[in-house]
């Protein structure tokens, strides 16, 4: 138990360091690189005095260290600053958007994790047979396609030609759970496709390694039925690494959200960041990105935690 605790403490502090560095990068990108913020907002023809006044109001004429310290301290307390565009606090926007994105991501995840793992397992059990080729090459192909490309093709097929699904994710007001779900199916499909190939590929290679291992040979030579060999001996060892991969995919998933939410006109964190970027709304942009960083860090932590619970080597430490 001590082993797992110290492992966890170490992982959390590493995540904090990573987040700290990320915040510096975001700060640099949002407040230092663009140069004169007031000029950037007001445009090249604005009066210099107006620019100075705006810079002063925004606080961007203070020393960098002060600016960073204030910004990060406020962020930690839940104050994400004021939006340049909406002239109102950023936090509610971010929280709302994050909630919406979670819904979309959850639909994609709930679909892709079991199906992806199943695909990989089935492919490995049929190694080098046609079924394996179809899953592997098909998975590889859909995984590498940009979401807006699969999105467009899916919209054309299911929204325009077949007219089965709505082409926008903006559901009517007061829509119930199932209506929301109905609107989320099409947007979640491109995300599903991107993740499917990854997860299936990882699960497949984990399975192949486990199937070829000496311990599987031991289990087979014990005379255990094939099902028992697979369920008890192979699957657990085979799928452990896949768990970590699934968590790291949250990063890609959020990247995909920016595109998908724009394409389907969905009010999530992705489209929030996109709109903020277009409007040079730096407080909104910085808070959005840092929030994504936190989500990613939490997801990786959760995965590491799960991994260490499932893996006795980490859970119990090594006596040797």
């Amino acid at each position, binding site marked *: 138990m001590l082993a797992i605790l110290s492992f966890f403490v170490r992982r959390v502090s590493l995540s904090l360091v990573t987040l700290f560095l990320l915040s510096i990068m975001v700060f640099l990108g949002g407040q230092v690189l663009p140069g004169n913020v007031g000029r950037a907002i007001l445009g090249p023809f604005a009066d210099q005095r107006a620019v100075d006044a705006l810079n002063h109001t925004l606080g961007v004429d203070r020393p960098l260290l002060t600016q960073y310290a204030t910004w990060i301290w406020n962020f930690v307390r839940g104050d994400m600053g004021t939006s340049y565009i909406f002239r109102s606090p950023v936090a509610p926007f971010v929280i709302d958007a994050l909630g919406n994105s979670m819904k979309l991501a959850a639909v994609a995840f709930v679909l892709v994790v079991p199906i992806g793992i199943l695909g990989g397992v089935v492919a490995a059990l049929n190694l080098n047979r046609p079924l394996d080729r179809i899953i592997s090459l098909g998975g590889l192909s859909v995984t590498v396609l940009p979401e807006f*490309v699969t999105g467009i093709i899916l919209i054309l097929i299911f929204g325009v030609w077949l007219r089965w699904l709505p082409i926008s994710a903006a559901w009517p007001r007061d829509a119930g759970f199932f209506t929301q779900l109905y609107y989320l199916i099409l947007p979640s499909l491109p995300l599903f496709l991107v993740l499917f190939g990854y997860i299936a590929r990882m699960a497949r290679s984990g399975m192949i390694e486990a199937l070829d291992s000496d311990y599987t040979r031991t289990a087979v030579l014990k005379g255990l039925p094939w099902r028992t060999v697979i369920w008890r001996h192979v699957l657990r060892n085979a799928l452990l690494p896949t768990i970590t991969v699934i968590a790291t995919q949250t990063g890609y998933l959020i990247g995909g959200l920016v595109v998908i939410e724009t394409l389907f006109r969905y009010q999530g964190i992705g489209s929030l960041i996109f709109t903020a970027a277009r409007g040079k709304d730096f407080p909104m*942009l910085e808070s959005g990105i840092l929030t994504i960083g936190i989500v*990613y860090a939490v997801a990786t932590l959760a995965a590491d935690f799960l991994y260490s619970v499932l893996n006795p080597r980490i859970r119990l430490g090594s006596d040797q």
Partner: protein
Amino acid sequence: MSAIPTSSPTPDDTRQRGPLAEVLFSLLRSGTFLTGLVIVLFWVGCALFGEHFAPYDPLADDIINALAPPSAAHWFGTDQIGRDVFSRVIVGSRDILTVAPLATLLAAVAGTALGLITGYFRGIVDDVVSRILEAFMAIPVVIVALLAIVALGTSKTTVIVVIGLSFAPIIARTVRSAVLAERELDYVAAAQLRHESALHTMFVEILPNVIPPILVETTVRLGYAIFAVATLSFMGFGIQPPSPDWGLSISSNYGMIGGGFWWTVLFDALAIASLVIGVNLVADGVHGALND
């Protein structure tokens, strides 16, 4: 002393083919690789010579024939200002096939250097750089790019630099873990026992042995660079109008698909899809050939 037997020539003495020949041989037998290669070469051909065999000027508008569906005159139809979609798709490969490979090259060079240094020196250098790289990787490339492009302004160079630098940590991570494994091998100790310099050990001793993973990772990254450039263009942060870029075309036309003008986006989408899949089939083939 009589002749020692092991040096007498026997058929099993040395193996038939050299390593490079073996890789080439297995590449040429890989259907995946060859299919991918044909697709990629097709688009490279279009990028280089597309202008000469495109039936129309991809930039010439023709308002009278705007939004015409596919026909004998316009195989892929026309867009909202009457430009020939077929010609635009053919020539549309040009910008993306300039920007993406350059970004990948930058990523490969920077990533290899970073990976070699962090893997070779380990210790504090490694810890610090690895943390920074990890922070970089904690947010999706598209978002890093978005932030940087907003901060720096849109241009092809910015896109190349931003994507190159965003991918560098990923390549660096691959190179680093390969270098860490190599570092443990005794030939590195043997080099130290000859007083070789760190530069010699890194670049002459270790680098050749980590080329295979670098090659695989770089080809995979090329696929993602195309992915990223297309996505940024689609979002308006990449290649700028009036270039006949695929992502850009989809971005300016997808608002109309509800009205049934599918040809204005479908062919561009398929073009991106085929190029990305082609590059990844090549990467898969290279991976297979190098990991036999």
